[in-house]
């Protein structure tokens, strides 16, 4: 993000915070329902300083990273196989057509019965959320690569695996990145929802469970503190991590679409 854009954002956030505080100060709503910013920030500070929130963040992030990593490998393997076999491509396309529009959360009841309400189940939902958009984008990326790259690969006597890794993969990087963004957004949402349902079965539970638990104790400042953390992580990943990857790759290479 550009500097003046950041300032713009900050100004709006401060203004919205002031409006919030004004509404709270009218006393029209019970502070149980609408806590003041002070109590929210205090709760956030306490949760962080006690280490409780950091553990939850670590739990959530580690599980989502693991899910994304596994999806990445699976997507590469599936796309690679589909380069070789038309029969497999046709099967894969059918599976994507069925699985892609299916929200991960819809699979939850099934997943609970299949693998119990643990880390494995959350991981399954995350992989389901990331894998299909990633495969779809990688496939589109591979298909939109100029024919000349394939010929160059052949000309320099690379085998199919080398062509895939050294030419097709970097050449389809803009599509890969777009797929990762969609995958991340879906996984992040699925993760929080799944944690709310599964948290109890885990020792830690994650951010979703953190919010859910706070709600059980009617600790609204705690709920808002959890929401703030989720928003901040979302912004950090989408606006900073992905943005910086883009700047160092497709922008630098002049490949941004």
């Amino acid at each position: 993000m550009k500097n003046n854009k950041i300032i713009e954002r900050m100004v709006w956030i401060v203004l919205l915070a002031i409006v919030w505080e004004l509404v709270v100060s009218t006393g029209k709503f019970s502070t149980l329902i609408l806590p003041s910013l002070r109590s929210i920030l205090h709760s956030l500070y306490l949760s962080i300083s006690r280490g409780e929130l950091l553990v939850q963040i670590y739990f959530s992030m580690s599980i989502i990273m693991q899910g994304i990593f596994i999806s990445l490998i699976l997507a590469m393997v599936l796309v690679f196989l589909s380069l070789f076999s038309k029969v497999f491509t046709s099967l894969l396309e059918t599976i994507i057509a069925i699985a892609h529009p299916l929200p991960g959360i819809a699979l939850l009841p099934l997943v609970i019965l299949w693998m119990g309400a643990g880390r494995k189940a959350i991981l399954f939902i995350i992989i389901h959320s990331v894998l299909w958009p990633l495969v779809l984008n990688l496939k589109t990326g591979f298909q939109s690569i100029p024919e000349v790259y394939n010929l160059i690969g052949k000309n320099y006597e690379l085998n199919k695996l080398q062509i895939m890794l050294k030419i097709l993969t970097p050449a389809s990087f803009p599509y890969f990145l777009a797929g990762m963004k969609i995958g991340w957004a879906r996984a992040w949402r699925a993760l929080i929802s799944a944690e709310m349902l599964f948290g109890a079965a885990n020792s830690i539970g994650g951010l979703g469970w953190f919010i859910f638990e706070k709600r059980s104790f009617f600790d609204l400042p705690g709920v808002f503190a959890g929401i703030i953390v989720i928003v901040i992580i979302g912004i950090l990943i989408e606006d900073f991590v992905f943005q910086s990857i883009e700047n160092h790759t497709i922008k630098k290479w002049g490949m941004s679409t």
Partner: protein
Amino acid sequence: MSSYLEIKNIKKSYKVKDDHLRVIDGLELEISRNEFVSIIGASGCGKSTLLKLIAGFIEPEEGQIVLNNNEIRGASFERIMVFQEFDQLFPWKTILENVYFALKAKDLFTSKRKRIEVAKEYLKEVQLNKYFDYYPHQLSGGMKQRAALARSLVTKPSILLMDEPFGSLDSQTRRELQNLLLEIWYKERNTVIFVTHDIKEAVILSDKIIVMDDQKGQIKEIIQNNLNRPRRPYGHDFIELFQKLNRLI
């Protein structure tokens, strides 16, 4: 003595809807070592197809292509193609890395340092010494084609196949690159097979000009070009040859 590259009665057709369109139909051709050969003809006459067959990107349905008494099978380092498309360079690699890629693919030289040194040498040869660390998108079309030429030459192919490499350049840049190509050819002495639709270009560059017949999928005429080098696109002999070719197409 048999010639260097022999194309024996090859046939190639493409599927167009339910029909087979025969693009090359019993074509015969012989090319000597170190020769600079241009292939010209109307668009759709099969000149690019012929080049792809020699490259080994596609296979003929019938006939053989024999190089140095060996029938060619598939693409190879000994026959490297330069394309017309500017995006033949990998956009995610710098110019230097693009040339390095070719050396690494062929596994020439063991040390990275030596490879970089050789890659730089070839980039200097095409006058890109100031642009080693530039990405392709930062360069003009002419510079991209220079870099592509360096990448193609660095592995020392016996035959350089060029598919209208200067077709998308403005006329001044095209002249510069033609001169550069000739300079390199005098030095490296590769065999060059150059497809173009520009008659003038063919006359300036080549020893032998092959005119393709767009109806029969065969060669219409082979014209030996004995004009003195360096050639200028004027003068009686040049214009005569140009007009002769113009009538043939």
